[in-house]
């Protein structure tokens, strides 16, 4: 039986909270295991640094991902090189795996659109802020590739809150009808800002919503990176090369928790209990994988220390790089509205430039 045939009420699991094996471990090389672990450590450390940058006024509002590394890294690693991810705004971890430089992510949250200019060859869509609105893009892009005769798969991320939006419905329904190679990956972190999962929908699970679109939906322990990897691998395989009676799309509900605030502008103590947070922290995906890898003798103290050091260095370097990027020239915002600047826009720029020339930058920048 394919893992995708798991009843949505059940939950796919591989290692438990202590790293003990409770399911079939996916067939990964030692290197791959270590890479998975390192990505998770990197994402976590990046996240901690980003939150502190924001506190120090060196970055704008930032959405932390701590607690969600298992789902992000486990899923992104299941893709082949040509595949794509279509993120929301919280998938810095997945983006990392797909080759988005940390510097880009930092730049983006420092208010530079340039952070969203993915390098050529990096198959990642730009950050999408309006909830669920990226879902139809993932369907359409996958559909395009299928029409073009390619076999790329699109992995689309969104939250539990996103399942309530019309775009979730329309995007998944199109995927079912046009049988597009899309994996819909729901990061159910229990909260949409202050609104709990039960207030989002009366259905017992989110995974079961896939049934409304004619394809499979499964639940996976989103804090178990191996379970996530396994489920996503199966979904990606099916998307690329389905059996005759199968539709390509899958919806994966990865059950997890956001440890921190929704964004740095949010105070979660107003709406949720510390007890609940503690309960979920016990499921932290990182020590869990670490325990397993130590038991398997893939990791040891020395290796872990090495990884921690290299991760720190990498993040520090990226921060330096990002902070050394100067504020962009205002001309930039005019230049990317259209392929060719319309005359009126050129006039607007010139008028602006003249005032800036006369009054100086200080008249504009409050800092």
């Amino acid at each position, binding site marked *: 039986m394919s893992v995708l045939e798991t009843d949505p009420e059940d939950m796919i699991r591989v290692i438990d909270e202590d790293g003990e094996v409770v399911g079939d471990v996916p067939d990964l090389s030692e290197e791959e295991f270590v890479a998975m672990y390192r990505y998770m450590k990197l994402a976590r450390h990046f996240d901690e640094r980003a939150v502190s940058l924001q506190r120090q006024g060196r970055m704008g509002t930032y959405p932390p991902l701590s607690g969600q590394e298992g789902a992000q890294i486990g899923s992104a690693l299941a893709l082949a090189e040509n595949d794509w991810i279509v993120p929301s705004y919280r998938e810095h971890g997945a983006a990392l795996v797909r080759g988005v430089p940390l510097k880009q992510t930092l730049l983006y949250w420092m208010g530079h659109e340039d952070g969203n*200019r993915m390098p050529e060859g990096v198959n990642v869509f*730009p950050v999408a802020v309006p909830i669920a609105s990226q879902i139809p893009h993932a369907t*359409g892009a996958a559909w395009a590739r299928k029409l*073009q005769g390619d076999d790329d798969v699109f992995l689309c991320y969104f939250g539990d809150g996103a399942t309530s939006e019309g775009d979730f419905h329309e995007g998944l329904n199109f995927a079912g009808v046009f049988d597009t190679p899309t994996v819909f990956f729901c990061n159910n972190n229990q909260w949409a800002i202050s609104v709990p999962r039960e207030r989002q929908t009366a259905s017992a699970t989110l995974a079961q919503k896939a049934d409304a679109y004619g394809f499979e939906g499964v639940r996976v322990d989103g804090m178990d990176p191996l379970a996530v990897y396994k489920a996503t691998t199966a979904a990606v395989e099916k998307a690329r090369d389905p059996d005759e009676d199968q539709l390509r799309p899958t919806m994966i509900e990865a059950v997890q928790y956001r440890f921190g605030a929704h964004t740095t502008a949010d105070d979660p103590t107003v709406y949720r209990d510390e007890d609940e947070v503690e309960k979920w922290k016990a499921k932290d995906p990182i020590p869990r994988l670490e325990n397993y890898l130590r038991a398997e003798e893939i990791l040891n103290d020395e290796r872990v220390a090495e990884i921690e050091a290299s991760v720190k260095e990498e993040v520090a370097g990226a921060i330096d790089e990002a902070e050394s990027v100067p504020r962009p020239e205002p001309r930039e915002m005019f230049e*990317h509205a259209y392929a060719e600047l319309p005359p009126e826009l050129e006039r607007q720029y010139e008028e602006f430039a003249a005032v800036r020339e006369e009054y100086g930058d200080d008249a504009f920048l409050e800092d």
Partner: protein
Amino acid sequence: MTETQNLTLVQAVRDGLFTEMSADEDVVVLGEDVGKNGGVFRATEGLYDEFGGDRVIDTPLAESGIIGAAVGMAAMGMRPVPECQFSGFMYPGFDQIVSHMSRFRTRSRSRFTLPMTLRAPYGGGIRAPEHHSESKEAFYAHEAGLKVAIPSTPYDAKGMLISAIRDPDPVVFLEPKLIYRAFRGEVPEEDYEVPLGEAITRREGDDIAVFTWGAMTRPTMEAAESLAEEGIECEVVDLRTVSPLDREAIVEAFEKTGRAAVVHEAPKSGGLGAEITATIQEEALLYQEAPVKRITGFDVPFPLYALEDYYLPSAARVEAGVKEAVNFP
């Protein structure tokens, strides 16, 4: 020698689609009833038979899905031409239009561009039910990153549609359905472009410049002919693209006459008549001899058809408005 056909506006739209689909495999059409049915106005007639169901795609009934999927397709380098069945049904997809279609280039600093053309029949006057008569081009013209094209002749319909499909940026293409079949015009069989952003003078005249577009060119021309009998000569300028506006053409025609009127179907308040007026007085105030007269729909929801003839600017209203401007003060 160029072969031409004598086509209606909607046939010219179809011909434009046919031409570009024949030339470029990346062009696909998607929407409700565009396939076997050939579109509720026959704008995609025969395309399904010619190009098959993978390029002329009947979708589920979901505008956000249609436009959003087209955004994804365009980001992958295709040139999708999504259709909304009426412009009044673009709103369920409005978020995809203003939050994504207009912004992918800016957001990604031009890594992703969206060569897509969103078509919709637009405007009133065909005795249709509620929501089938909207003309809210001002919404799209106010959203940077979009171009907004509205042809008024069969020749322009084909040429502007081809330009739109080839444009590297997203275009909202609004087709005045009141004149879908109102008259025919010569349309070259071959492909050709009518550039976006360029107005055209439909009639020369020294007394007043009248700016209009889409279906309103008809009552405007009619009024111009009848005014000519009274000795008032209108310069009638069809703007054709309402974003970007051809401000040079507006100013030039105005400076020639010192007086102007704008005719559009959309409600007056916040309509593009205001933008044209503001442009004129910004650039050519010293030439101005009379207020720019706005002859427009009213600030009420478009009525059901028993009253629509009163709502739409008629030749009589254009005549009266032009006279007011010409006789000022």
